[in-house]
């Protein structure tokens, strides 16, 4: 009985928890509520994915109003997999928040923090599951607004500017998206995604479709932080509280990438998007630029959080490169990297958060001698770095395997070289940290600071461990990525 309501429950649980937290108010109670809700979300997400893989598409009519009149939730292997990633990240990040946030956010604002986290989670899950273009926009705004608040809670005053920057860019993105779906609605008279997917190909090559595609692509690309629309991202990641950086890096951009894939492959359809249009070439060019330019910028960062942020922009390039190949192999690579990079970057941000707590900042200078003062954190961070490079035995290697073989199968042999060269840039920015952490003496007179508290260290270590595990045994993640790719490329019936 309950089983058929899983899609809506996944969104409802965090959505209801948010106002509940506002009522609870007490920091400890708010945290417990948020923690509980995250765990429940994960417990729902697992059988939902199982169901989606077994059954194909699950359609859920909200309030039993049938689509296309009512709002439909439409779950398949692709969005259920991404939803699982999001829920998983929430469960990793929440235990960390208890101590992590205490140092960074004033205690009377804690309940707001957790409420916003829940809204953000609900919004992200809603974006994933909904089968309605406008409902998607609503959830996009819910998650974005919550994110703006979360970023602004960073203790550095520059967090406000970062939040404001993101607010401007995010709003522009959302607006462009709405214009896009408005155009689609004008033509087809429907906002149901599955309906759109059926009607659009019949309309043929219409200029309005093309315009809608352009608006939606640019709008969503802003949220993805696809180069060169990434300018909001480094500040947002650098100045927000560490837990927020980790959660956003692992989920927010990933969800937007899912939306882009859904629109490209399921709704507009490969033929409209890629054949006889420059979309594929453009996406390829931007992905390549993303793989190289932000990676070079990352090398010159003085702040490790910013370094990771630019690295994220660069890694997003790998994902969009997979999309631009417009093959099942390419999509598999994109989804696999979405998962692997979420684990890697999430883990690295969590570890880094512990360091920031002890050292009061994330500038590379302060990391001198970290290998001696915080040996576990430093080593775990390096392991995460190896995954960014794509060393075999880490999750990052699996992504690279799929991406490069997909490019080769499409006959794009030269792309293999581009991917490899950009990994060399990752070697450089990761090794800057290694040399500072292991070859410099800890600054004079600094008291010997131990590792971060266990509640902060363990979630980070767990993610890094997962990142190694899924690098050595990717049979599950690999087959899920393949199933998700096939679901995206399929006709959604």
């Amino acid at each position: 009985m309950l089983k058929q309501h899983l899609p809506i429950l996944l969104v409802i649980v965090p959505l209801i928890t948010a106002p509940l937290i506002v009522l609870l108010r007490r920091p400890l109670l708010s945290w417990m509520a948020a923690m509980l809700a995250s765990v429940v979300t994960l417990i729902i997400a697992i059988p939902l994915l199982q169901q989606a893989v077994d059954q194909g598409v699950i359609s859920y009519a909200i309030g039993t109003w049938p689509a296309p009149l009512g709002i439909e939730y439409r779950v398949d292997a692709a969005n259920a997999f991404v939803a699982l990633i999001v829920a998983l990240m929430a469960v990793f990040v929440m235990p960390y928040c208890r101590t992590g946030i205490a140092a960074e956010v004033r205690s009377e604002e804690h309940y707001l923090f957790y409420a916003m986290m829940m809204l953000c989670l609900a919004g992200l899950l809603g974006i994933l599951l909904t089968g309605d273009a406008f409902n998607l926009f609503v959830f996009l705004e819910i998650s974005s607004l919550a994110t703006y608040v979360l970023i602004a809670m960073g203790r550095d005053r520059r967090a406000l500017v970062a939040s404001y920057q993101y607010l401007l860019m995010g709003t522009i993105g959302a607006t462009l998206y709405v214009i896009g779906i408005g155009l689609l609605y004008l033509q087809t008279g429907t906002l149901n995604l599955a309906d759109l997917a059926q009607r659009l190909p019949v309309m043929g090559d219409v200029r309005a479709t093309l315009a809608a595609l352009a608006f939606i692509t640019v709008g969503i690309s802003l949220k993805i932080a696809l180069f060169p629309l990434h300018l909001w991202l480094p500040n947002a990641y650098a100045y927000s509280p560490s837990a927020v950086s980790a959660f956003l890096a692992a989920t927010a951009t990933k969800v937007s990438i899912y939306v882009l894939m859904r629109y490209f492959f399921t709704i507009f359809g490969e033929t409209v998007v890629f054949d006889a249009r420059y979309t594929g070439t453009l996406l390829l060019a931007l992905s390549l630029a993303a793989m190289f330019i932000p990676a070079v910028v990352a090398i010159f960062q003085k702040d490790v959080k910013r370094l990771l942020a630019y690295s994220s922009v660069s890694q997003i390039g790998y994902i969009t490169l997979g999309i631009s190949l417009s093959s099942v192999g390419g999509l598999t690579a994109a989804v696999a990297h979405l998962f692997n990079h979420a684990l890697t970057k999430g883990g690295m941000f969590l570890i880094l958060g512990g360091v920031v707590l002890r050292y009061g900042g994330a500038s590379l200078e302060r990391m001198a001698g970290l290998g001696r003062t915080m040996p576990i954190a430093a080593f775990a961070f390096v392991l995460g770095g190896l995954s960014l490079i794509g060393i075999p035995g880490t999750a990052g290697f699996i992504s690279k395997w799929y991406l490069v073989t997909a490019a080769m199968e499409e006959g794009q042999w030269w792309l293999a070289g581009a991917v490899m060269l950009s990994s060399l840039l990752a070697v450089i920015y990761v090794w800057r940290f290694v040399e500072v952490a292991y070859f410099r003496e800890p600054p004079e007179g600094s008291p010997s600071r131990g590792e971060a508290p266990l509640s902060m260290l363990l979630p980070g270590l767990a993610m890094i461990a997962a990142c190694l595990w899924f690098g050595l045994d990717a049979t599950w993640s690999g087959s899920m990525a393949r199933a998700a790719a096939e679901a995206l490329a399929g006709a959604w019936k």
Partner: protein
Amino acid sequence: MSGSMALAGILATPLVGLILVSLSGRSPNLREGVTLTTALVLFAQVLALYGDVAAGARPELLLLPMLPEVSLQLTAEPLGMLFGLIASGLWIISSIYSIGYMRGNKEGNQTRFFVCFAGAIFAAQGIAFAGNMLTLFLFYEAMTLITYPLVTHHGTDHAKKSARIYLGVLMGTSIVFLLTGMLATWVLAGTLDFRQGGILAGQVGATGTAVLMALYMFGIGKAALMPFHRWLPAAMVAPTPVSALLHAVAVVKAGVFSIVKVIVYVFGAENLMNLGSADWVPLIAGYTIVAASIVALRADNLKRRLAYSTVSQLSYVTLAATLLAPISIIGAAMHIAAHAVGKITLFFAAGSIYTAAHKTEVSQLDGIGRKMPWTMVAFAIGALSMIGLPPAAGFISKWYILSAAMSTEHWIAVGVLVASTLLNAGYFLPIVWRAFFREPAPEAHHDDGHGGHGHDDHHGDHGEAPWPMVLAQTVTASLTVLLFIYHEPVLRLARAVAGGE
């Protein structure tokens, strides 16, 4: 069944050793006891596998299902058996030597040193028994990373800069060339298994094969084919036991081992012969042999000279393997063994000289043979092996390689081998001559030069190095001679590689 258990044991032993060493850091004697025990157990395990593999068995072990398409797995085959035996056997001797060296020189961070050493041996065994290219690549990269802390052991700026070259070249080549080559192989052949006759045979044309060949030859940077050889002299900044076991044996042999393995089991020697796609490799290898020898000739620093000699000797293996005749493959496999025992002896001697006399330059070695006769006799035997003279192991392998070059009428290779023999004699014999026949130089100005060391022993009237070091180099020198007299077990494995039984 028992074979796969043995493989699991071979991989697990150094790992267990690594953990125990890191736990016993407080008590150096216990720690070194653990290292030695681990090394002995490991060697016994590898040796126990020899009989089966030489008789034709190919035990397998599935490690992890890494990807839905390809898994990590181990397979024992003759070439891997050979490399596994060399790496684990010399680890015992080198551990004894390390104990003397690290204590004699009062090195810091000894626990980290022994931990990483065990890690490097773990990676070497993984490479030796890798059942497919993916597994080999995994352990290959692991080896680069685990040896990095050994290269940077002293933590100085010089060490840091050298380690940058080390990591940059090894990781750069392996990611940009080797990984690309491996993935292309996967896409083209649909498998990464090692098979007799090669998996690319009949799948790719001549040009494609040549491109893949280049990706593999330069991608396996550990084989130090020019122009990607710079990491090896850079690695000499590490303590000498590292240079001896890792940068004369385990790491570099992992490189040439991979090259032979790729040629025999991925490309297939016959396939390459038919396509002619590997014809250019002997030229590059030949160039490397001669050029590195010339650099060695001019190097005054002893370890640098030995490093360039290694670069040159590694290309012997590459050259032999790419001559593609069965007899040349035998020569390549033999040379892996012969060079290992010879070069480790040379490095051991260099380390003994440094520990006892604090001398690092060739020009300082006048008359040192009288004070350190054991060391310099061992050095002389090692040198004979490098030149390829009897009664040293190097003669045997050079014999095979030279016969292969003649029988395939590859006159360039013949010329290179002759020239290199002369060059080797040119940079090794003067050292031996200096050590035994020249009067020692007055000591005073050397003491000034090395005043910063802060060691209390007086270098002027030093004797031999600490006994564990002397013991180690005596054993390897004896092995060098022994391998000349009795090389049947090695030859048996080498034949199996070349002929497929």
